[in-house]
């Protein structure tokens, strides 16, 4: 017989806050296997996040827009600082970098289909550009990673933008990881690796170190592509204020800041949960850096890491982002963690809503796998339709909030529209605690 929570309470069984059941299971797993836990997804611990912010809708002192009458613009231009052909997107909700290898070919195709349908961009990953992805993506951002797997000048010229990746929110300071189960013949060929090995990507770029070198590297990429493509620089959120300033000095057109809730296909659990800072804490640092350089809205800021709905989109933009990127939410929209596969998840020792073993390549939904039979479960056309629907909903939800705040364009949202419901969120987001004018950490804070 298994006790319910009520039974335990009646019996006076008290769970340790320090050694809770999850912690005990982790210790037991480590003792049994002798290997650290590797998993996908992003940080799962509770963190101050967008839910800790609220919008101040219009009333007497602000004038709202008519919800179903007046236009609220959503378009965004990314990369017009130096590039001849910046990206012109219909929605500020973009799709983050996810590799072919981590994801199946059909899943990558679906991301391209969905993004293209709503006029936004998708992004390659650590493993190169596939023809399917290029073919289905109207706006494709090509990642330039430390591993340089599959990197070649032909694909560089085919890309619509180049994203120099210094890190990602789930593992700032760490390289990619793809376990042998997913190194299929095609993946191995694209990465010039032996089939079936546990692949470890480099964490540092092989031919430059430090921001001065990055300046020269970006200039080289521009020379190779005749200054046509926007160059993004992506950083995992840590010392964001300094990183954003240095990226701007290095010549970035766009800076991408990925908070610790951002997903990964495979990383050590300890890394995911204990390295990096929350998305909410990173945005104001990035905006401050851009403002001090006089480059806010000139070098665009793309924020990722835990964007789930239109409120998150609107809040990120109100804090100063020009656009957002979705990764985990995009996979869920495609069908990841779908309850219809509940029995399959249980066979893998997981459950729908909890599945994060993207590293194993056994994804019942056929998304994070290279197994042809599992991948065949996934329909890229239907997946693309679902992703397009999801991005439309995010965009419409953000518009709903923007109109309520009296904004005729999403980019008009501003920090003044926000308050926080916790002291931590107020301090991180640098907006007042609701009902007060107190921004913790501000010298002029205090009072009502």
């Amino acid at each position: 017989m298994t006790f319910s929570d009520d039974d335990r309470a009646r019996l006076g069984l008290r769970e340790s806050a320090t050694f809770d059941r999850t912690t005990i299971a982790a210790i037991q797993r480590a003792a049994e296997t002798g290997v650290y836990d590797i998993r996908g997804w992003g940080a799962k611990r509770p963190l101050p996040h967008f839910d800790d912010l609220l919008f101040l809708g219009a009333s007497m002192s602000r004038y709202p827009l008519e919800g179903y009458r007046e236009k609220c613009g959503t378009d965004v231009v990314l990369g017009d600082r130096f590039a001849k052909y910046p990206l012109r997107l219909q929605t500020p909700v973009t799709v983050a970098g996810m590799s072919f290898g981590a994801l199946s070919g059909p899943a990558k195709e679906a991301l391209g289909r969905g993004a293209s349908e709503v006029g936004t961009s998708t992004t390659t990953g650590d493993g190169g550009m596939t023809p399917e992805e290029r073919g289905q993506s109207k706006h494709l951002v090509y990642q330039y990673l430390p591993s340089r797997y599959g990197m070649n000048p032909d694909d560089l010229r085919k890309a619509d933008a180049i994203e120099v990746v210094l890190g990602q929110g789930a593992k700032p300071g760490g390289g990619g990881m793809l376990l042998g189960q997913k190194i299929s013949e095609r993946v191995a060929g694209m990465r010039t690796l032996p089939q079936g090995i546990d692949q470890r990507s480099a964490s540092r770029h092989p031919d430059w170190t430090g921001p001065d070198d990055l300046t020269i590297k970006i200039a080289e990429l521009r020379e190779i592509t005749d200054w046509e493509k926007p160059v993004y620089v992506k950083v995992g959120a840590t010392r964001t204020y300094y990183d954003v300033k240095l990226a701007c000095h290095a010549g970035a057109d766009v800076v991408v800041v990925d908070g610790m809730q951002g997903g990964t296909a495979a990383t050590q659990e300890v890394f995911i949960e204990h390295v990096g800072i929350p998305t909410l804490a990173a945005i104001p640092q990035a905006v401050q850096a851009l403002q001090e350089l006089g480059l806010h809205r000139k070098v665009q800021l793309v924020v990722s890491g835990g964007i789930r709905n239109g409120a998150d989109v609107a809040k990120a933009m109100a804090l100063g982002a020009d656009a957002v990127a979705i990764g985990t939410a995009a996979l869920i929209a495609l069908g990841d963690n779908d309850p219809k596969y509940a029995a399959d998840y249980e066979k893998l020792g997981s459950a729908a809503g909890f599945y994060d073993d993207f590293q194993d390549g056994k994804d019942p939904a056929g998304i994070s796998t290279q197994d042809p039979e599992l991948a065949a479960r996934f329909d890229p056309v239907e997946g693309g339709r679902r992703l397009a629907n999801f991005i439309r909903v995010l965009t419409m939800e953000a518009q709903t909030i923007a109109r309520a705040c009296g904004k005729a364009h999403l980019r008009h949202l501003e920090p003044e529209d926000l308050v926080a419901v916790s002291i931590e969120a107020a301090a991180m987001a640098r907006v007042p605690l609701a009902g007060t004018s107190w921004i913790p950490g501000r010298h002029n804070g205090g009072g009502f």
Partner: protein
Amino acid sequence: MTTRFDLTRTSLREVNQALHADGLDGEFVIERPFGAHSVAVGVNAPVKITVNGHVGYYAAGMNQRAEITIDGNAGTGVAENMMSGTVVVKGNASQSAGATGHGGLLVIEGDAAARCGISMKGIDIVVGGDIGHNSAFMAQAGRLVVRGDAGDGLGDSIYEARLYVRGSVASLGADCVAKEMRAEHLEELGGLLKSAGFEHDDPAAYTRYGSARQLYHFHARNTSAY
């Protein structure tokens, strides 16, 4: 026909743009580079380019098909990510020479600094002199030939690249071991030396190094090697 550019009179942008023209052919000479970065990058044509002088970072980066000679020293990342063609550095090369290269031949007649051939993916590199530390780090494929000595950590975390060193190796990196020189390796090395203009070297005087393939899968016992 030979086209000449003087980098003190023509901008780097104009030179590289000219070298990216559709249907490019002929020969090109770039004079007075004075350490400029990104000289002759992204060329994708079977042309001959000579750079008379020293160059900065990333000269001949991502080269495809061109035969590029640098009559001087080269800065960091010469011929980085080269796909095909030939790049010859008559002097010395700085760090990360031939980094991540997928194909083609890079010849450095002098010495190469640290990280030579880092993450190489199929390129062939022949160095006339010595190479610095951490060369061929995570080298995936291709061949690296060193006529002199190699610094510390040679071939650390190497995959399937083959390394040939004639002189001493200060130390080998994780999972890199000396291997037997079989007939096919002597033949392969002889061909590489000949291609690089060192056909009088005796391949038998070289030692081959490659992966022990002990770190291809995660194991708790390998903690100190990771």
